[in-house]
């Protein structure tokens, strides 16, 4: 039997984001404080309240594939295939993937909406006819990659990525899989998605200065910036990874989750549920706040959300909040919604690899009392990093990663 204390490591990473489509580029751009936010140009935008986003121009075609065939797939499917295949290649499992039970877990929060909208724009009738929806995106990805383990598409809105990593760890510990690809993907920069968030009055309207629009923890913020992209991770039991001498990026040390039960969209003014999610993650990791070296905040650049998270961190960290460097990489990437947690887990691994913390750019006038890393990356010894992700539906999640 596999015990619940079995360590699970991240041994491979694949990603496509507004700041790069490979890990070295993403690391470099995050640490350089480069924004991936710019004006939306791939559809008419003149009437939209928010006209900016963190975007991916073209999702790279994985090696040994026909680019014409690949580019004909739905973009969400391209993204998921790119991320998962790149992660398997990075981990050294790609050529051997059929020798093991490889599970697949992806946060895919608005898969149907994306597919229906793209089809409708081309004059299709998919939204009217369920017979055209008989195979899901994740099943298509599984078939394409030739994986034999269980698969799961999930959503806890913007907290999805952390849930995917937690369930992947569970599957490994329960012996349901030998290897698990877990992460999240989002292609939310579409006319209807940009329109619905804009009409919700959730998005920044700083259209004249895209790179300065995402301003977590800054008094001048006016909403979040939509982003698109994804990240996938290969998870393995530590004993197995050691046995094959695999390179490990990090251990998934702790996960915690809870629900606000307050509102569909607005974070709870009572911080207790979010506090419990963070504390559960720390307890799961058998750590106390003093041991944390860095926190990647959820901080989306909305006044209510940023303030709520700051209050949570103050309570959980106590005096340690004065010294633990905190950053929000959404200032550079925009908010990847379903995929935010996955990208921010990658940003935590960036801190391990480079012993430096990416900055929160545009942080000219902080309005919270935290140890924020503003404008420029900060060299810092990081062994333990925490990533918060909160989402619509009142979902609160926290992930603790430890350098291996």
């Amino acid at each position, binding site marked *: 039997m596999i015990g619940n204390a079995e360590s699970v490591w991240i041994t491979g990473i694949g990603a496509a984001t507004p700041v790069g489509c490979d890990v070295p580029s993403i690391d470099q751009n995050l640490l350089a404080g480069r924004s991936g936010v710019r004006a939306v140009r791939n559809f008419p935008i003149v009437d939209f309240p928010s006209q900016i986003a963190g975007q991916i121009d073209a999702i790279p075609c994985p090696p040994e594939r026909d680019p014409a065939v690949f580019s004909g797939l739905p973009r969400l499917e391209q993204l998921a295939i790119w991320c998962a295949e790149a992660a398997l290649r990075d981990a050294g499992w790609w050529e051997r993937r059929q020798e093991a039970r490889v599970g697949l877990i992806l946060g895919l929060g608005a898969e149907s909406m994306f597919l229906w909208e793209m089809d409708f724009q081309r004059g299709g009738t998919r939204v009217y006819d369920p017979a055209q929806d008989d195979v899901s995106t994740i099943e298509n990805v599984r078939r394409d990659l030739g994986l034999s383990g269980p698969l799961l598409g999930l959503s806890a809105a913007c907290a999805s990525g952390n849930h995917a990593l937690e369930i992947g760890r569970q599957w490994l510990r329960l012996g*349901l899989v030998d290897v698990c690809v877990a992460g999240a993907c989002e292609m939310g920069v579409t006319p209807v998605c940009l329109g619905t968030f804009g009409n919700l009055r959730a998005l920044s309207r700083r259209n004249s200065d895209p790179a300065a629009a995402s301003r977590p923890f800054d008094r001048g913020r006016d909403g979040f910036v939509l982003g698109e992209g994804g990240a996938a991770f290969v998870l393995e039991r530590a004993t197995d990874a050691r046995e094959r001498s695999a390179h490990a990026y990090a251990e998934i040390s702790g996960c915690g989750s809870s629900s606000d039960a307050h509102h569909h969209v607005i974070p709870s003014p009572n911080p207790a549920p979010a506090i419990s999610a963070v504390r559960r993650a720390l307890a799961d990791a058998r750590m106390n706040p003093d041991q944390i070296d860095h926190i990647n905040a959820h901080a989306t650049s909305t006044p209510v959300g940023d303030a709520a998270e700051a209050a949570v961190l103050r309570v959980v960290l106590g005096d340690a909040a004065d010294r633990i460097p905190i950053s929000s990489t959404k200032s550079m990437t925009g908010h990847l919604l379903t995929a935010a947690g996955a990208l921010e887990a990658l940003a935590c691994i960036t801190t391990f690899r480079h012993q430096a913390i990416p900055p929160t750019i545009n942080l000219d006038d902080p309005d919270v009392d935290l140890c924020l890393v503003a404008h420029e990356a900060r060299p810092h010894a990081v062994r333990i990093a925490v990533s918060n992700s909160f989402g619509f539906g009142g979902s609160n999640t926290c992930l603790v990663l430890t350098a291996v």
Partner: protein
Amino acid sequence: VTKVDPLNTSSSKAEPGAGSVLEVAVAGHAFCRLAVDEVPARRRRPGPVREGTDAIHPSLLRYSDEQTVAAVCSVFSGVKELGGDPKRFDDWGVVAAPRYQGRAGFAHNLRRFAAEGVWSVSPHLIPHFALHAEAGTISLALKSHGPNLGVGGGLHAAADGFLVAASWLASGTVPGVWLVLSGWAPELVLDPDGGPSSTAECQALAVAVVPVNLAPEQPRFRVLTGRARPQEIVCLELESLAASLEIPGTLAPRILVTDPSGSLCVELIPTPRPTAPSAFEDIRAHSPATSRTPPPHVLRSLSADRSKAVLDTTGDGA
């Protein structure tokens, strides 16, 4: 939760054909079916809550997809079956597996966007029609603080729901899970104006699942992964799933759902093995397996005049 490992899969060197098994107990369940013209009333009053507990806010379901309305109705009926106090489930998880949620509302918004532009797009699409929405709304309705998660979303969503609920329980993430499966029967097909082209009912099945040791005499779900099972695809309709839970004891497990790859299979074991007395007495007392009264949690109030049915496709909860 009982985890058995008949094929010795704990080794990382297991063959690809190896499999694993998780078992969880069904503490209770409730099935809800709503005709289209019943949905507006249920939005305002989704179900019974025990006297003395907080009522839900009347606007909670105002913008929700029809499947979410049915899901909340089914959970409230399930809560009533299990004693009526939603506070009891404060730390339970919620796993919701809708099937093609939001189709009608999204179709309406696509047409409006095409005709009128961005200002016509409802701001409620993501909060109420995306995959997380049903689970989040159930969590709100119950005022529960355990994690909530939407899974699947497509034809085989039920398999995903069973797998996550069993994984959470086996890992000790939560003490119990409200697993809610929802969809249209028959599947909702829209005409070019966005209206339903056939008579359809919105259905939801809420199943309270707990570790086996807390309800040892209850029916069980057995979730099998790997290639140990036959690969035929099974996907019972929600009504059939609900009916399976009402069948008196038999020793034969019944396959309820599989995933399309054949790597996952969910079986119902109607009669569990004899075990020690349950520590979950009140749940057992109300369970379908021991109840001899007609199942009151089956909501069936079909409209006599379906021609008057109007589906809210606005996304504005009109």
